[in-house]
């Protein structure tokens, strides 16, 4: 019980994490989240390929034009599909992806507290 409460608090805290980041931070965050399409499993941030360099230039431009992070992701999603994003969005395709681990955690907790723990 105590543990569950601790959890809940941590979850709440975690969700209150919106702090302003500088342009540089935002650019880094975005490029780390985009896949370099001509590399085998590298992000645009990590890669120095031609494609990655062009992407970085374009992202700089978009940030300067005032695009938000979500808008930039949408822009690239429209061009290249969802595969370019490393952070899978929460849509009907990915509910199971995000929720199944949490579900497993809760089920595990339920099994344990029912079968194993007794209080004195």
């Amino acid at each position, binding site marked *: 019980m105590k543990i569950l409460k*601790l959890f809940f608090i941590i979850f709440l805290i975690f969700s209150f994490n919106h702090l302003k980041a500088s342009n540089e931070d935002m650019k880094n965050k975005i490029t*780390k989240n985009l896949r370099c399409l001509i590399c085998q499993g590298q992000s645009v941030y990590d890669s120095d390929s031609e494609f990655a360099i062009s992407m970085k230039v374009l992202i700089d431009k978009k940030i300067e034009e005032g695009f938000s992070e979500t808008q930039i992701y949408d822009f690239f999603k429209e061009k290249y599909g969802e595969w370019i994003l490393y952070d899978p969005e929460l849509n009907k395709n990915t509910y199971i992806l995000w929720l199944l681990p949490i579900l497993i955690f809760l089920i595990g907790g339920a099994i344990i507290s029912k079968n194993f723990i*007794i209080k004195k």
Partner: protein
Amino acid sequence: MFYSTIGHYSLVLGLCFSLILVYFSIKNFQNSKILNTKILSFTFLQFFLVVISFLCLITSFVLSDFSNETVFNNSHTTKPLFYKIAGTWGNHEGSLLLWLLVLTLFIFIFFLKTKNKPLKYRILTLIFQQIIIIGFFIFLIETSNPFNYLYPIPEEGLGLNPILQDPALAIHPPILYLGYVGSSIIFSSALAATCLNIVSKEWASHIKKWIVVSWVFLTLGILLGSIWAYYELGWGGFWFWDPVENVSLMPWLALTTLLHCILVLEKKQVLTSWVIILSISTFTLSMCGTFLVRSGILNSVHTFANDPERGLFILVFLFSLIFISLFIFFFFHKSSQNIPNSFFWLSKETSIIINNWFMMYFLSVVLIGTIYPIFLEVLSSQKISVGPPFYHKLIIPFLIPFLIAMAIGPKLKWIKSNIEDRVYLILLLVISIILSFLIVKNFDSNFLLNTILVSSALYLFFITLRDFFIKKYSNLSQNIAHFGFSLLILSILFNNLFSSEIVTNLKVGETFENSKTKIVFESIGQKKEKNYESIVTNFIIENSNGVNENLSPELRIYNKPNIVTSEADIKTTLMSDKFIVINIVQNQDYFNVRYQVKPFMLWIWFSVLLISFGGLMSFFKKEYEK
């Protein structure tokens, strides 16, 4: 050519021995007393044959015998000797031979070391292990033979990818496989013990040694892979949540969980079903990983054979093992009904169960993240990527209670406990939080989360440190291992918080300057080595204290295969690494220069070593404890 023949026929003979062993074992299962020496000799011979085969392959590589297809595909006459040898297991076929080597070695050692155990148990373990071995023999000989002939014999080979020519990567597969493949013996013996209904405290003590050995090697193997990635791949990272990395992490998570569980089983006859399930799962995950990585079903940085036909074989093999295990578990396992299975909420057993709970959660995150894209694509033809952000979001929040549980758990007594040292526990918590606040306050991003994370890691750090200094060495191995883990999390967090990077374009002679650093592109030159030519550049970095540092990144043009790689220059010191990489910009006369300062890298490697060392200590525990 001669060696290829010997190598090939050794394998065929080895397969025959498998069949002989299984036949003998089954036929004489009832009056097994006769078999003792025969089986030991045969297991040794089988191992010996695989060793011969392996040595033949190494020889073919060293002699650059290009009549052997594997040597042709993966080697070149100008490769340095060390990498010719390491090239043996740096390819699909050779690494499968390494699988067989470890499989046969472990069953042989198992037979040697279990002379005082019931014979039926040893024989059953042998049978189950042989099933795995037979599968691999057939797979190797039929689809991935390292001794295929090429005619006409080519003059020169295709060479080994230069990024694989690195010392850390050369020993990474053998060490990793000792852990990864070594878990096969845990699988086989767990199944054997289930059939004979001897999953007990005695069995737990006995199997614990094997679990520890497998675990230590697996940890070290993963460490080596990360070190290679950091030094060689040039991006300054050491873990990318790449499918191949995840595939080695999953058995590790299962094995660590099993290690904790076996501690409970050693003391009380509880959790037997769960221990069996974990033992089966660890090796299943290894096999599953092999499938994911070698079948071409996943897209990854690590180049391995991409062959759906081979993939189908492994898939069928993997699921056969799963179904056999399921069958045996359900039909043979009788869970002990009369011993109470419940634990007091504040006890060591409970803390281990909580550890299991969290570890299984982490395992499910990694498993689902790795496999989900495959399933989605089959269902809806949609391709999505699951990368670091997914894993970070799901794992990091849960690390916080996990770290705290790690700090408090070991202090609880078996069966029932009230927490002693309450004052100290709370005091250290407060200190951790304050210290963390002071460290993190200058960094804007994710301030709250980082503070809490650092606090919990610091808490574990202080508690384990204090325990080390005040307690007698009754649980030294766990103390060291948990301390190592806290150090690992702290190093990773600080590395993340305090890393800095400068990316700029520079021509020779130009300088980049900002408030903290000055980078001078001093000179450029050429160098010629045995199998590559390189453009060597020299940079002088001046930091805010006026201290100068010379760094020389290179661009290497290898001859075979014709690849250009960027070699980072990394200056490692105790407190931080300085990391510089250059890249050509198409059609321009300047270079793209990336300079990073990465603190605490050495501490990350050291903490993993500490964790393995802690685990290793438990291997020798009996001697000093009693």
